[in-house]
């Protein structure tokens, strides 16, 4: 029999030391691993915050754009002064803090500038785990967006009947593309008669459009293959029918603001007619709360400056009547109300010798129907996004000329009819708001 002698004390301690060493190694490995995982987690969180900060900055840009496009037109200053802080010299700003789930926010500024205000927005997001802020800044420059950038702009359908509708363009401010009086010249015309529909179809039929057509993807275009035509002038595209390559696109994404009330109170009473049934308007704001009718032989004329006439009821210019604009004068006619019952507008001879920019008819939301008919001439603009418009040309061989531009809900063109878009309206005509020209991260 053999007896085991007890181990000496140092050998028992070596097991403990080995176990301790292994524990330390394992512990350090585990700690290193956890630290590495945490670093990765923070890096991913930082990346997410980096992306979120840009989204927050763009939220500020959106708020700024909404603020400068608060209604039809380009007068954003009263609204910005009321709703945003800051002095007018350094612009206006708004600060939104902790409005997003990641404790993000933005500070956006509107800086008055030329041709349009500049918006600078600084967005931030807080990185979880470390609580650090990540900041990104975006600058957007803007310019006035022409209310009349196309010959015809509608929200729904454009329907052209017959074979005698023709649409092209000229430039009343360019002597190379207009007469010496600034009117349309068929010898120097241009192919800028663009027709767009934001939410409907463009039925060209047998009409000739010397310009582009654009619709939304869910819209479309139909052209009579025998004699309908969309494209450049014959000298550049001699085909007699069809759609020229590149002259139709279905990527339109536009919006048209409703017209607001033009003024709070009139500055003059609407004048009584003179002995020749002429209504002469000066540079004042006139209000008629009922219907207004311009009878056969009567004229409505603007003598000087800018006259604004707001007819809250129906506005009817009967056959044989005329709206005249004196040189240097301008007339804006507003029809309807924001929330009242539906009203209509009917026009005939308008501004037969002047520039299109000098006459405009603006339909407030209650203006739901408009028409222009007979053997007449029209030099002006129509902006009525809620109105269904009918342009009725002559049934005979003589053609009626519409010079200017129109924006309506829907449009029908019939008979012998020439529609000439005045391209100078893009530069000298009214603006419906501001549009972005450049986007830059600072």
């Amino acid at each position, binding site marked *: 029999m053999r007896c085991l002698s007890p181990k000496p004390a140092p050998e028992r301690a070596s097991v403990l030391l080995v176990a301790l060493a292994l524990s330390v190694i394992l512990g350090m490995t585990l700690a290193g691993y956890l630290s590495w995982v945490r670093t*990765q987690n923070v890096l991913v969180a930082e990346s997410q915050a980096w992306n979120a900060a840009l989204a927050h900055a763009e939220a500020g840009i959106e708020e700024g754009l909404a603020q400068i496009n608060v209604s039809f037109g380009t007068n954003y200053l009263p609204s910005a002064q009321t709703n945003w802080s800051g002095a007018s010299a350094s612009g206006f700003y708004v600060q939104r803090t902790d409005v997003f789930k990641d404790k993000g926010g933005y500070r956006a500024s509107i800086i008055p500038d030329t041709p349009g205000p500049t918006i600078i927005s600084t967005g931030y997001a807080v990185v979880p785990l470390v609580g650090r802020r990540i900041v990104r800044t975006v600058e957007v420059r803007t310019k006035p967006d022409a209310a009349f950038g196309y010959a015809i702009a509608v929200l729904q359908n454009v329907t052209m009947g017959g074979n005698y509708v023709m649409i092209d363009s000229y430039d009343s401010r360019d002597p190379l593309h207009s007469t010496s009086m600034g009117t349309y010249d068929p010898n120097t015309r241009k192919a800028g008669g663009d027709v767009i529909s934001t939410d409907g179809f463009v039925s060209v039929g047998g009409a000739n459009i010397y310009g582009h057509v654009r619709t939304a*993807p869910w819209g479309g275009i139909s052209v009579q293959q025998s004699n309908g035509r969309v494209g450049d002038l014959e000298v550049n595209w001699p085909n007699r029918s069809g759609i020229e390559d590149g002259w139709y696109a279905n990527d339109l994404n536009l919006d048209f603001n409703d017209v607001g009330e033009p003024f709070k109170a009139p500055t003059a009473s609407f004048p009584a007619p003179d002995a020749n049934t002429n209504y002469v308007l000066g540079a004042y704001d006139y209000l008629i709360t009922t219907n207004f009718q311009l009878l056969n032989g009567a004229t409505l004329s603007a003598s000087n400056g800018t006259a604004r006439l707001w007819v809250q009821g129906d506005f009817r210019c009967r056959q044989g009547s005329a709206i005249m604009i004196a040189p240097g004068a301008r007339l804006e006619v507003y029809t309807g109300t924001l929330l009242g019952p539906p009203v209509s507008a009917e026009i005939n001879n308008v501004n037969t010798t002047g520039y299109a920019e000098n006459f405009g008819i603006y339909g407030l939301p209650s203006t739901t129907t408009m028409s222009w008919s007979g053997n007449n001439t029209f030099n002006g603009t129509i902006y009525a996004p809620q109105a269904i418009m009918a342009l009725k040309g002559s049934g005979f061989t003589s053609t009626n000329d519409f010079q200017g531009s129109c924006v309506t809900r829907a449009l029908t063109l019939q008979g012998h009819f020439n529609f000439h878009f005045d391209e100078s309206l893009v530069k000298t005509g009214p603006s419906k708001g501001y549009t972005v020209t450049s986007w830059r991260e600072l």
Partner: protein
Amino acid sequence: MSLVELMVAVAAGSLVLTSTVAIFVYGLFSFAGMGNYAILSGQSRKSLDQMSREVREATQVVAYQQTATTKSLSVTNAYTSTLVTYAWDSDTGLLTRTLKDGDEEICLSGCDAWEVTMYQRTPRKNWDFYSTTNLPLCKLINMRWKCSRTILGQKINTENVVTAQIVLRNKP
């Protein structure tokens, strides 16, 4: 120490050693995999940030090519007069970025797939967008890529898929 005790000790020791080696090797693979993930993730984040910034500030897509083995996208920025081309080659697995003056750098390596889809500006009712192949109509780009790394020659759980939609903010 008897023979039996020795054999038991060897067996127990072998078991412990085998387990330790197995855990060690598994740990190495795991660490290598995690390392690959980290590299891929970092590479993708950096490339995505650079590409999204350049595409976002671009004014137009000027070239677009999609074949089975090579794909490329060129965007220009009229404000800064820059032109940048992203090109992917399936043979090399590289996604490269080339500037107008010919300077080239590698954005992604081990890139198994790179897909670009162009969309026009108009949204659908469900906020999706209409796709297009017409360069002048392109307003939005969807990019998707997949990268991978190998461990001892095998692709083991180290794929990394990135998808991004970028709007060309300066496209009129």
